[in-house]
């Protein structure tokens, strides 16, 4: 890539990934994956279980280091950064984990405010204000003093989203946000994610195997298979894909009765 062009091109690109490889012992999970995520869009990364979707997500925030390849976040290479510099880059991200990953010993409000409290930039009143605002946004006002163990799976997911939003990130990563939720709750979470992008202009990256959810919220859908992106496009393009693997994935999802006929 020409050095001069890079800055210009990177302007509206949130994340660029080139030839990413990752092995876990003998298991070659990511096999030369290329992907570009535009800023301000919602991108869904779909694929079967064990295809490396979550692994890819963890590479984007630097939780995993690739064995080869490069990852640029807003034009900045992150694969060989660590310490303070990596923390600065991570500050632009927030991640909503598959199992919500709330700290069980802390109350809901402490969980949501955790990042801000530890940053020590805001005073207590300001943090409380942010926590209240984010909990209202996810429809969980009044649950502040409860512990994660007292909430349902869907509520925990919403707390995790509130915790992510409290850090005011530019990019939010969602790891299987609707997995294990009933259809009503899944739709509710989807609406929430769509709102983040539409109203708050955040970049959202959603890893999911729920095609229903992907079609509902994404501007762009990428399918990962055997460690590479084998198809990408708008939901309409994706639906009409001629790629047999993509067709099979969508039709199998429909057969399970999880998708309403478009």
């Amino acid at each position: 890539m020409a050095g001069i062009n890079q800055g210009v091109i990177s302007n509206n690109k949130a994340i660029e990934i080139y030839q990413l490889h990752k092995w876990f012992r003998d298991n070659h999970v990511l096999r030369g994956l290329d992907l570009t995520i535009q800023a301000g869009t919602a991108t869904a990364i779909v694929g079967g279980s064990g295809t490396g979707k979550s692994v890819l997500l963890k590479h984007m925030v630097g939780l995993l280091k690739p064995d080869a390849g490069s990852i640029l976040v807003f034009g900045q290479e992150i694969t060989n950064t660590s310490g303070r510099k990596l923390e600065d880059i991570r500050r632009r991200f927030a991640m909503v984990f598959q199992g919500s990953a709330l700290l069980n010993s802390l109350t809901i409000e402490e969980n949501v405010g955790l990042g801000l409290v530890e940053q020590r930039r805001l005073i207590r009143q300001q943090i409380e204000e942010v926590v209240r605002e984010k909990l209202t946004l996810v429809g969980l006002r009044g649950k502040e003093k409860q512990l994660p163990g007292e909430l349902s799976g869907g509520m925990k997911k919403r707390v995790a989203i509130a915790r992510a939003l409290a850090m005011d990130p530019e990019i939010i990563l969602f790891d299987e946000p609707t997995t294990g939720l009933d259809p009503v709750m899944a739709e509710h979470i989807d609406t929430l994610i769509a709102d983040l992008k539409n109203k708050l202009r955040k970049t959202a990256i959603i890893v999911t195997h729920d095609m229903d959810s992907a079609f509902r919220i994404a501007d762009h859908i990428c399918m990962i298979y055997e460690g590479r992106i084998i198809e990408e496009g708008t939901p309409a393009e994706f639906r009409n894909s001629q790629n047999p693997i993509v067709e099979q994935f969508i039709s199998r999802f429909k057969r399970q009765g999880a998708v309403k006929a478009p």
Partner: protein
Amino acid sequence: MGRFFTALGEKLLSFFQSVGEMLQLLAATILWCRVVFKSLDKVLPQMGKIGADTLPIATLTAVFVGFVLALQTGIALKQFGQEENIGAVVSLSMARELGPVLTAILVIGRIGAAITAEIATMSVSEEIDALKTLGINPVRFLVMPRFLACITMLPVLVIYVDIIGMVGGAAVSKAYFGVPIGVYADNVADYLEFEDIAKGLVKSVVFGVIIAIVSCHRGLVTVGGPGEVGQATTNSVVFSFVSVYVSNYFVTRLWLE
């Protein structure tokens, strides 16, 4: 045969890798101790937890170890008519060896196992990753408070265990061998020196470092599910025990040279 050596080699490699990682963790933890005063809200509850969880069992253990020490030495010393020296044997054994080692074993069982189980559960449920994405360093947030709590509370517990053990010894001396409490106490005062207690305390700090670092490390490296959490906890306890016994020998030898 070849397979045996492959397996042995893998075990050795993973052992040395663990030790290397633990030393790195220790270095990182010591560096983070610079923010101790900003983290007192995390350190003090950990200290309280160690005290509250360990005191009842420490009392029970120490008093019975004191009993049996006095009983065994009393029987032996009685043959030479030296019962008044029970105090010296009990107090020196407690202060130099039994106090620190027993306390370490109790803390490994009560606290070390709990630390590993807690942190391992956090690892497998992605809470550690969540902390990182929130810009929170897990070593500062989880390891450093537990480390400081262990190295400060172990010496405190050792002093307590020493005293209770000696009191237990006094009770048996009086009850079985008719040694007056005053004679026992004088005998302790004659033989037990500050140096003996101090050496025991230094040992306990070393044990505290080992317990905290081993327990936290085993928790942080756990991947998988609930089964692995149990496995990690067992590993952590065994590793801590062995490390405490081995380091106890070397620290004791260091002083003899």
